[in-house]
């Protein structure tokens, strides 16, 4: 898969995002890392230019509540509802449902194993092969966890 790994918002810690990017690479995926502090508009443009299948978002600042719905909406509004979105970083349990309701397909918090993230991508890939959508705009509510 071609995956964009992005850091939205203002937090400046990307060790986690880099570790994930690296392990996705080792899992045979093409990973584009955006660098720190990208706006939702920049992220959606990057996903478009790179024609990515998936977007991984890492946020630690607590701004996911605002940023993630905005990114999901931008993707849907610009014809990229087929792009799959997953999250990592610090997303409190109580916010998970809201994130999923905007089209996020998986959330990987601290302690997640990279093998699990790779299985999630494999699973998503086989669903896509079967013609089922895993994109942010998909209404059937499929989620990994």
């Amino acid at each position, binding site marked *: 898969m071609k995956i964009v790994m992005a850091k939205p918002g203002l937090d400046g810690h990307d060790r986690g995002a880099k570790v994930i990017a690296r392990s*996705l*690479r*080792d*899992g045979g995926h*093409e990973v*584009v*890392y955006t660098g720190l502090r*990208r706006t939702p508009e920049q992220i959606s443009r990057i996903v478009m230019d*790179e024609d990515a299948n998936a977007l991984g978002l890492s946020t630690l600042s607590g701004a996911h509540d605002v940023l993630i719905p905005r990114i999901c909406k931008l993707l849907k509004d610009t014809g990229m509802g087929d792009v799959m979105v997953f999250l990592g970083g610090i997303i409190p349990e109580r916010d998970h449902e809201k994130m999923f309701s905007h089209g996020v397909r998986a959330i990987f918090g601290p302690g997640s194993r990279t093998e699990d993230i790779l299985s999630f991508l494999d699973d998503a890939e086989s669903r896509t092969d079967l013609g089922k959508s895993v994109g942010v705009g998909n209404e059937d509510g499929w989620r990994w966890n």
Partner: protein
Amino acid sequence: MALELTTAKILLKSASNGNRRDLSKLLTLLESGEKINLPISDSASNSTVLGVTGPPGVGKSTLIGRIINYWKEMNQKVAVLAIDPSSPRTGGALLGDRVRMDSADSGDSVFVRSLSTRGHPGGISSSLMAMINALSYCGWNKIVIETVGSGQNEIKIAAFADKIILVDGPDRGDIIQAEKAGIIELADIVVVNKSDMPASIKVADSIRSALSLGGGMDAPEVVLVSAERNEGIVEMMRIIEDCKTPKWRDRIKIKERLISLWDSRLLSSPKINGIIDDLETGSISLNDALDELAR
């Protein structure tokens, strides 16, 4: 196949009308080896293709970020194809050139695509040509190619670029590299980046003297810039835009294109994996393998 061809044509039409999403999808098709015949148009020849090459860590991506800004301010449409290596073992790749190009996401007139070599440094070449042509057709009149940080024999860029920038930096110990032959002879300009570091002046002098020993004929200019501090960029761009590429480069360009096409034919042969298996067990010789593939 026929259906895919139609898809590519539909995408091309929409992309040339300014649909960015479809341009991006078209590039994906071309990247995967799809062929498309572009209608001949006047606009296609109006694009400048700039190749930026040099060893890892000298600041190619940061410099391209500045080049994007320079052209953007002149109301040009700038497209960048940034190539990074993929793992020969897993096929995966980490494409991080965008991180250093802070102007990469700056508006409708800038398009940046990261590409991996997909295990075939030579194999990307034929699809790269198609992608450049498509971008050009769709009105992107400044196209920048960033190659994998190259060694001395990385001259593939000569197959695609109208102008070539070789980037070097002060923190590489061995100046004797400049004395060697290779890409340095093909460069239209040699840019020594990180001019804020004192050692860069010495490096620039060494490269200049190495080049002047060759008789000085067609020797590229050597300029100092600091991409980080945005110093020397305008002067560098003027030199690039004004320089005349020597005639003999055309011949090398054609030759490199031929080699690229040869490479990609070889790599896309359905027989290649079987032949590698045979070579591994030693049941055929390299020459026989090549004959078999070329058949």
